[in-house]
């Protein structure tokens, strides 16, 4: 069975009948004419799948599969949007999906990384941050800071921390966050949260598609 999480920037594919780990494909490289999977989630997933699973449902089921706690907050920071689920004593208690005001945060971080050729592993977590509610609008803070003499790297670090704080507040500022998505690999982003963070990687939604209730 072929499962897929069709993200805005990256697609994650898993063949459950193979021993191979999931594959990651930039969405722009996807063979759109020939791709067809059995179960999918994510942006545009409905177009390529026999069965579609809502992204929040896939995220929650992935969390239930990977997190061995009855109460948890799981936050997925994607390229285009952020979403979270909160479980309390095994019961879904709250969830949110911000595709407008929290838009394009992951996308802009990757964009800035390439534009300024920044290695996020070598950036210190700044003490202060920019107030960011949208990736695209937030970029103006970087340009303003650079104009006033701030180094590009420090300005980007403040931007990234602002995004992390916004995502933290969106998820109702828990004591511990389980983090999903490609930004798990960004140490500056992970370290910018003012709480304990457990990165689960970018295949949490795929995990959610593997649970029996998804089939």
């Amino acid at each position, binding site marked *: 069975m072929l499962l897929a999480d069709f993200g805005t920037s990256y697609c994650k594919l898993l063949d459950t009948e193979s021993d191979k780990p999931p594959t990651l494909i930039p969405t722009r490289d996807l063979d759109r004419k020939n791709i067809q999977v059995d179960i999918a989630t994510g942006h545009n997933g409905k177009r390529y799948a026999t069965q579609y699973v809502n992204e929040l449902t896939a995220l929650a*089921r992935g969390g239930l599969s990977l997190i061995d706690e009855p109460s948890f907050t799981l936050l997925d920071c994607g390229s285009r949007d952020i979403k979270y689920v909160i479980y309390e004593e095994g019961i879904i208690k709250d969830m949110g999906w*911000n*595709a407008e005001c929290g838009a394009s945060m992951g996308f802009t971080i990757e964009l800035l990384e390439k534009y300024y050729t920044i290695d996020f592993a070598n950036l210190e977590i700044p003490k202060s941050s920019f107030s960011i509610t949208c990736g695209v609008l937030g970029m103006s803070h970087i340009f303003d800071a650079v104009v006033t003499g701030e180094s590009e790297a420090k300005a980007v670090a403040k931007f990234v921390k602002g995004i992390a704080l916004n995502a933290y507040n969106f998820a109702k500022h828990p004591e511990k966050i389980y983090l999903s998505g490609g930004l798990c690999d960004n140490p500056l982003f992970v370290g910018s949260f003012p709480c304990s963070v457990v990165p689960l990687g970018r295949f949490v939604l795929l995990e959610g598609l593997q649970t029996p209730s998804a089939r």
Partner: protein
Amino acid sequence: MERTQKQLFGIVGVPPLAVMEELAANRSDIVDLDEPQGRIDLETASPFLPRVYCGILRTVIANCLAVKPDVIYIDTGAGKCDCAVHTATVLEDILPQTTIIRTKNQDSCDFGIPLCKARMNLVEKMSAITSGVQLIAVEQEIIPCQPTAGFWGVPPRDFSLLSLFPDTTHIYGWARCMENKTPDNTEMECHYNSDIPTVFFAQSFCAKTALARHLAGKHPHGLYLDCDVTAGNSAKSKIQAFLELSGVTI
């Protein structure tokens, strides 16, 4: 809308029963201004109400401008909302040819809530409740169903979000007060069923968002949801995921 010689009466909120009885006795033509009346551009309301305002009251203004009722009964009591008070003032200024009559519905005679508890498609059920405002007789008895989910709140601006619920969804909140013809009934409005997963809905920018979120926090299995004019993918996905993850069969 084609006009006749008869006067056209607009209603906003739930006017007192005495008003509806009088309109019914005169066989008046009535238009519910809370609901979209065909393809009317909501932007026509923007010169008169802020864009960041209750989507239902923006709809009221847009409807009034398009339909131009002769008389408007607008409930401005606790059974509607403060925003309606100000909307009534705006209407008085922008529609000088229309008679604006402010009411404060404090009816306390229970008409019953058979629709709220019926097994019925939720869109049709809510439509029956809103159109029931114009009825003055008690609804026929309907056998209540065993609820598997709850919808708490007001009739949404966009009924499409109701299509995600099962037919065995019971209705709570102001929509229940509406069917009961007691819109200013705080006790009924605050009632919910702790045993079923419930979505607590309010229109964005409506004062009822406070109550919806408060009650969702108290409910052992509640989800707070607000949305503006149209229910977007995010809002619909939240409802769908909440029901799925709560084990509700659609």
